[in-house]
């Protein structure tokens, strides 16, 4: 190795938090910039950016060549600087374990309808799947085209934390939510989405699952639907069909307006 190249290796990165300390000392108000931390999650290390009391971005660290590449991409998206910080937003560790109670989110410059869809996405429970029509209805825009919903979900700037990976197609199969396929699979595996069971219902054409004992029908991944024993499973291809058979929609997964 030539000596000048060796000297290059001495150009080491500043420790995390150095840039933020500089701005603090200089007196640039904290609301003018965002910070990000590297956080360990069940699906690998993530960058999590936050500022002004809200989480503003997330990405797996291996989607970027280095920290600078992430910062540049963040700047291009939000027009704000992200500095490497040391303190994660309170509640992050919990949220990464699937218990997102306290975090607030700021989705950056997205159209209002996409923000509404993303807010609705947060309501999909851990380990469950919902189709685009459900998200549109929960977002208060039942007439929104499914393509627009999928576009909103793919624009999700906070993957993993805002569970866009819980979107499914109208058939009930997990949908492509714009993340690397292997990463999506890892997320769903971690959440315990039973791919075999989901596929079995899709092959049978069953969009909803009713219980012969309670006469309530659910999305097949709903926690209540998973408890129905095999001999009481009553599959339906549409909500209307279920209603006609005298079943009512589940109050937790809300397969139809109830």
């Amino acid at each position, binding site marked *: *190795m030539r*000596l*000048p190249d*060796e*000297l*290059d*290796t*001495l*150009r*080491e*990165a*500043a*420790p*995390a938090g*150095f*840039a933020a*300390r*500089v*701005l603090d*000392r*200089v*007196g*640039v*108000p904290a609301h*003018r*910039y965002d910070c990000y931390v590297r956080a360990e999650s069940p699906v690998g290390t993530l960058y999590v950016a936050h500022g002004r009391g809200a989480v503003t971005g997330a990405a797996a660290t291996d989607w970027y060549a*280095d*920290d600078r590449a992430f*910062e540049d991409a963040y*700047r*291009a998206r939000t*027009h704000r*600087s*992200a*500095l490497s910080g040391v303190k994660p937003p309170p509640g992050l560790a919990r949220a990464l374990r699937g218990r997102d109670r306290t975090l607030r989110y700021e989705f950056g410059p997205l159209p209002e309808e996409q923000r509404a869809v993303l807010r609705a996405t947060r309501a999909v429970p851990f380990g469950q799947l919902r189709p685009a029509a459900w998200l549109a209805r929960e977002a208060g825009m039942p007439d929104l085209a499914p393509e627009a919903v999928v576009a909103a979900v793919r624009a999700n700037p906070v993957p993993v934390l805002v569970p866009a990976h819980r979107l499914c197609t109208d058939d009930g199969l997990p949908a492509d939510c714009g993340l690397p396929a292997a990463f999506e699979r890892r997320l769903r595996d971690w959440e315990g989405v039973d791919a075999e069971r989901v596929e079995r219902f899709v092959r049978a054409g069953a969009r909803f699952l009713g219980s012969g004992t309670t006469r309530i029908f659910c999305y097949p991944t709903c926690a209540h639907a998973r408890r129905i024993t095999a001999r009481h499973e009553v599959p339906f291809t549409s909500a209307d069909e279920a209603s006609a058979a005298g079943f009512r929609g589940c109050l937790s997964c809300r397969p139809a307006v109830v």
Partner: protein
Amino acid sequence: MDETTLPLTELLATDLDDGFTELVRTQAGTVRAVLLRLSGSARDADDLGQETFLRAYSALRGYPPERRGQLQPRAWLLTIAANVWRNHVRTLSRRPGVADGIEVTTIEIPDGCPGPEQLALDGARRARLVAALSRLPDHHRLPVVLRHIGELSYQEVAGILDCPVGTVKAQVSRGLAALRAEPGLAPDRGAYGAAEAKTAKTAHEPARTERKEATG
């Protein structure tokens, strides 16, 4: 709004706080790395780095927008950093009891870059290089660090040191030569370098002895 295409200098001209945040984001690493190699200690590098940006910010506040728009950010910041460091050294020399000038502290391992096994392999050599660099006299270390750690051009370094470009080139090359001459840094530098040096020596020596005999 097409803010993404705005270069840093224009940001500085239009919105000082936002521009300065970008300045810190993109340049803080370089400024700190330069100060780390100049001062030799991580704590000093942190303090001097903060001091540098504090000065930069108050200077920028006094500049009219056109002047902010024409800055060469890295060269300008490193000029301030070099001044801050020189002041620091002068202060230390006036109060010798407080600290011993340059201290070679433990080398921190940067996040990510080289893998652990590569670090273990290069660690000793790297430590020797760091130590050798900190032993260089100030008038060689400053140009070498500005040129190779700060990645400035010779012209920019000449501007900071306020001397001709040729002088800078000479200082940098003497500084590098002094580093190469360090005993700890020689053996690893490729077998061919050492072998060449040896053959050159052996080729020269008989010639010289012959000449001696001829004259004697």
